[in-house]
């Protein structure tokens, strides 16, 4: 009876988790599609290679070895634990106990493989534990500077703590499950399954009676599973979403040199008309949307910029490398990504609440508590943020598009820049020199 109840509970639980997770991920997907289209077709081989190296292979993480190694523990540990999760799932649906183990128990080669895999999971779990504790230490005790910047106040810090503490609970549960199970096995057969860590832990609890051990095992099993379900649902609301989006984001990363900023074709057309007096402008299309230069809100950014925003895990390597931020300016590339995502979430929620139709809210991504003009002005376009990002996000791409809007739509420029533009237009140089003096340097 209890047995059947557990199966029903499992299925109900799993069903609910998948339903809510689906809604969360669909929301993220739909929000990303609010961005304007940008073509990323072609170069599939190079894109796959980038994804394998940077997301799967963590290549860019290793610019910074200590966090890279700690992160590698968590990453590999997370990936390999999914094998044990598979067995937990199968056990949950069938109501069996260690279904894979019992299937391979009498086939020596497979039995060995099973024990080997679980051992790997257990050893990696210990490393994950070390990594997680180190991450908590770095964030809350030694207070690594990039993890304690103003833009992280409130939910972002809470989000980070939630993930790290869940990680520790997950590990506690998996060891409670395996140790309880091993202790029962020892009681029954005189020896454990051959799992190094849990057999070691089991020796401290073998004096408990069978029922208590079973309870320890069940608590671990259900605890682990519940946390997995909760995290699955929580993930699309968290910075931790990078564990999934790092892959598409590196796949769709821009392949051209970092110095390149795209040319706007709509402007080329206008200038060519200006330069060629005999050209006849094409008839205006009355139905065409008015041309808008640069980006003022999330709709004007490319879907890739929005994917970037959801991929950001707020590690702050960009901000730590930013020359403006280092010298005390307001600009923080990480905040650009966070503001973009926050604005996108607000816009997406408003659209969802209004039957899929966007109603202007009188706000935009510029100012309104999002990206301030002062921040935008401080960027030197040095690409340090782009270089640093381990998942190939470009805050600079967003900054340039917002700057374009300020300059070309709002005519909002510092006076020195207005003078510079005039000089460039009239004298072909950013300073007020006559073009006739261009060869004056030869006169010495």
């Amino acid at each position, binding site marked *: 009876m209890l047995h059947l109840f557990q199966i029903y509970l499992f299925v109900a639980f799993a069903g609910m988790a998948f339903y809510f997770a689906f809604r969360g991920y669909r929301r993220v997907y739909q929000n990303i599609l609010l961005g304007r289209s940008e073509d990323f077709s072609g170069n599939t081989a190079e894109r796959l290679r980038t994804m394998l190296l940077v997301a799967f292979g963590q290549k860019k993480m290793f*610019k910074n070895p200590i966090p890279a190694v700690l992160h590698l523990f968590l990453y590999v540990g997370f990936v390999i634990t999914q094998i044990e999760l598979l067995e937990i799932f199968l056990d949950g649906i069938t109501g069996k106990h260690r279904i894979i183990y019992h299937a391979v128990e009498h086939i020596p080669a497979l039995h060995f493989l099973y024990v080997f895999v679980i051992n790997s999971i257990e050893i990696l779990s210990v490393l994950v534990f070390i990594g997680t504790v180190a991450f908590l230490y770095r964030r809350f005790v030694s207070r690594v500077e990039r993890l304690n910047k103003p833009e992280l106040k409130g939910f972002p810090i809470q989000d980070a703590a939630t993930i790290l503490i869940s990680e520790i609970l997950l590990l506690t549960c998996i060891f409670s499950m395996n140790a309880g199970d091993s202790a029962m096995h020892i009681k029954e057969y005189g020896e454990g399954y051959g799992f190094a860590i849990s057999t070691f832990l089991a020796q401290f609890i073998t004096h408990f009676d069978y029922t208590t051990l079973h309870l320890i095992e069940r608590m671990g099993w259900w605890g682990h599973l519940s946390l997995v379900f909760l995290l699955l649902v929580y993930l699309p609301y968290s910075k931790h979403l990078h564990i999934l989006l790092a892959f598409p984001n590196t796949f769709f990363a821009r392949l*051209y*040199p*970092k*110095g*390149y*900023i795209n*040319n*706007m074709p709509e*402007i*080329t057309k*206008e*200038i*060519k008309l200006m*330069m060629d007096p005999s050209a006849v402008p094409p008839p205006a299309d009355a139905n065409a949307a008015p041309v808008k*230069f640069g980006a003022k809100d999330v709709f004007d950014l490319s879907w890739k910029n929005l994917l970037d925003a959801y991929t950001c895990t707020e590690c702050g390597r960009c901000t730590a490398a930013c*020359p*403006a931020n*280092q*010298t*005390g*300016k*307001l*600009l923080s590339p990480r905040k650009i990504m966070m503001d973009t995502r926050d604005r996108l979430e607000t816009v997406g929620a408003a659209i969802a609440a209004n039957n899929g139709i966007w109603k202007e809210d009188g706000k935009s991504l510029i100012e309104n508590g999002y990206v301030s003009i*002062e921040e935008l*002005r*401080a960027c*030197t*376009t*040095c*690409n*340090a943020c782009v*270089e640093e990002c381990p998942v190939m996000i470009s805050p600079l791409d967003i900054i*340039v598009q*917002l*700057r374009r*809007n300020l*300059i*070309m739509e709002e005519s909002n*420029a*510092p006076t*020195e*820049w207005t003078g*510079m*533009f005039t000089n*460039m*237009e009239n004298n*072909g*140089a*950013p*300073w007020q*020199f006559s*073009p006739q003096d*261009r*060869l*004056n*340097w*030869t*006169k*010495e």
Partner: protein
Amino acid sequence: MELKTYADYAASGETPEVLFWVGCAGSFDQRAQKVTRSFVKILQHLNIKFAVLGTEESCTGDPAKRAGNEFVFQMLALQNIEVMNNYGVKRIVTTCPHCFNILKNEYPSLGGNYEVVHHSSFLQNLIDEGRIKITDTQSFKGKKITYHDSCYLGRANEIYEAPRRVIEELDADLVEMKSCKSKGLCCGAGGAQMFKEDEPGKKRINIARTEEALETDAQIVAAACPFCSTMLTDGVKSFDRQQTVKVFDIAELLAAGQGLETINF
């Protein structure tokens, strides 16, 4: 200083090997003009047939583009492309990483397709070909030189070794700053910052970078960008160290090594 413009070449029916794109800083800024002359001295010393556009050259549009003014950028770019395509320009060398980046990466889709090299790569090639002979082996001996990576050469286009190779040709000691190569700290000039005041903050970016340069105890801070040179020179002055620490472009250093230029440090 005698030199030929593209118009001169066209008039005589000749074609130069390469167009030397001088850039606005190289043309007008007094300090950068010296770098322009040093580079020309090297070209002339090696009998390289080069031309400049002279009065037909305009700003590439870089500061406007990075500030967000695509109109001004494209207006200048399309004018420059028209001039260069009329002359049939194939190859460009420039002493400015901003000009280099924009000519190489952003002009092609507007119709300007050229082989563009920065003077650091150009000089490295000449060294590799054995065409540069260092005659002054004494001035640099035992001296420390630190190289400041320009963002538009380094991260933007991944050129880190060429300028270092040029410095290594001199018999000096190349020392690195705390942040260098792909982690190099910006001088503070890019993105049209050169043309306006810094936003409010703790300090100016060029001061932060100069601090790193001074920490190396180098006598020479080498740069490969006119804007970086200006920023670092101002930085050194603000620490009142201009008597003992000098900022030079790699072209000036190499010209001095060849005995084409006298520099004081």
